[in-house]
């Protein structure tokens, strides 16, 4: 070591530090259960790329340095692209659909539903489960409009039902006094089985609409979507005979959602977006009245994307800008809730 130049010492330290930082990454991935898949994918991709380089170096042994340098540079660019794509493709669905379930809220709602006092009812549709918050001002057998809700990706039906029933009953009264508020968990969420994907959400939207439509007490159905749920809600209203469509913080297409996190999903990079939901296209086929609400300070769904969706909507559609609120503030804003209830009253 004494004979080594400073440059060689630095290079040696760099290699040991690089090894150590990779151990840091592997340790963190092992400690976080959700990262196990991506760790495996990264290890396989890196080892395959390394093996490929080794084969190329052996094959190009007799070639000039320039050719070797060109091959290494090309493989490096390709390698970075492959690694980047692998990370995006594995973690994006994980981030997009965290498959929430609130065990305490679920137990509380099960207990309340067991009382059978016409306040809340556990519902199912195939492998999907959820809650029906019964209209407070109506008797059990009365016909009533139903607000069919498609939630945001961070929500689950039990916690929302708990909010409606216990935590904020006055705030949410406009949405469940004269209407049933129906919320089925997405596949993989709550106690619903399956995997949340674009296809499964579209199929779910159609299935739950048919289920709600088959209830003897249903007089009309208003599809209501929030955030990621605006996609399936719009699709449902475009395929089924809904009486109204309410969208809170909607996106024109799922690329806008991805691009708001990392603005790279253009051209061929769109192939990395596995969650395909083209609301812009679906909304053209919606024939019922539409109410779109968006915030100009929404940090998750770009306001411009909501405007683009509105621009694609035909017929009786209305756009309401709620200024100065964040993405999650829709749920605590009286104006938003009351406007939604008013719209539901008008169309049902």
């Amino acid at each position: 070591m004494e004979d080594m130049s400073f440059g060689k010492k630095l290079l040696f330290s760099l290699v040991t530090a690089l090894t150590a930082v990779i151990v840091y990454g592997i340790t963190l991935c092992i400690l976080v259960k959700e990262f196990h898949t991506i760790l495996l994918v990264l290890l396989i991709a890196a080892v395959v790329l390394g093996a490929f380089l080794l084969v190329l170096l052996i094959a190009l042994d007799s070639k000039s340095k320039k050719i070797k340098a060109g091959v290494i540079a090309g493989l490096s660019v390709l390698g970075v692209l492959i690694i980047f794509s692998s990370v995006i493709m594995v973690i994006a669905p994980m981030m997009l659909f965290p498959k929430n379930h609130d065990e305490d809220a679920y137990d509380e709602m099960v207990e309340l539903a067991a009382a059978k006092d016409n306040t809340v009812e556990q519902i199912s549709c195939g492998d999907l489960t959820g809650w029906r918050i019964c209209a407070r001002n109506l008797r059990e057998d009365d016909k009533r409009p139903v607000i069919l809700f498609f939630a945001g990706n961070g929500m689950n039906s039990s916690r929302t039902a708990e909010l409606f029933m216990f935590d904020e009953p006055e705030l949410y009264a406009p949405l469940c006094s004269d209407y049933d508020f129906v919320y089925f968990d997405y596949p993989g969420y709550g106690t619903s089985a399956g995997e949340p994907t674009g296809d499964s959400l579209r199929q779910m939207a159609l299935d739950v609409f048919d289920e709600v439509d088959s209830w003897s007490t249903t007089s009309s159905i208003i599809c209501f979507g929030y955030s990621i749920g605006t996609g399936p809600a719009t699709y449902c209203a475009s395929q089924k005979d809904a009486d109204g469509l309410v969208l809170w913080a909607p996106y024109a297409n799922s690329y806008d959602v991805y691009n708001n996190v990392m603005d790279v999903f253009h051209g061929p990079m769109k192939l990395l977006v596995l969650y395909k939901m083209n609301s812009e296209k679906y909304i053209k086929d919606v024939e019922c009245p539409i109410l779109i609400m968006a915030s100009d300070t929404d940090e998750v769904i770009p306001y411009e994307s909501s405007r683009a969706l509105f621009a694609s909507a035909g017929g009786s559609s209305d756009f309401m800008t709620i200024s100065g609120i964040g993405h999650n503030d829709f749920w605590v804003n009286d104006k938003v809730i009351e406007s939604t209830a008013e719209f539901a009253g008008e169309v049902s």
Partner: protein
Amino acid sequence: MIDYSSKFIRAALFTMIMLFIGFFVLFMLTCSMIVSLLMLILPAALVLLGIILVHVPFFKAHPWMILPVDVVIAVITAVIIHFV
């Protein structure tokens, strides 16, 4: 020390650089700022530590012992970051 002209070593270094990029992108997108910043700060600190350690008599005689020291520091950092 390390024969950097060896094809196998070059391929191994390439694999490690790809893994480094992968972890950096992963942590940058999913974890807190400190976790992703550590992907840059930690190697810089470890390089400095390595340069200092090569002047310590024990590590002068056994330079490969720097690697386990770096690795232990990295593991401890990861565990602390995860649980704190």
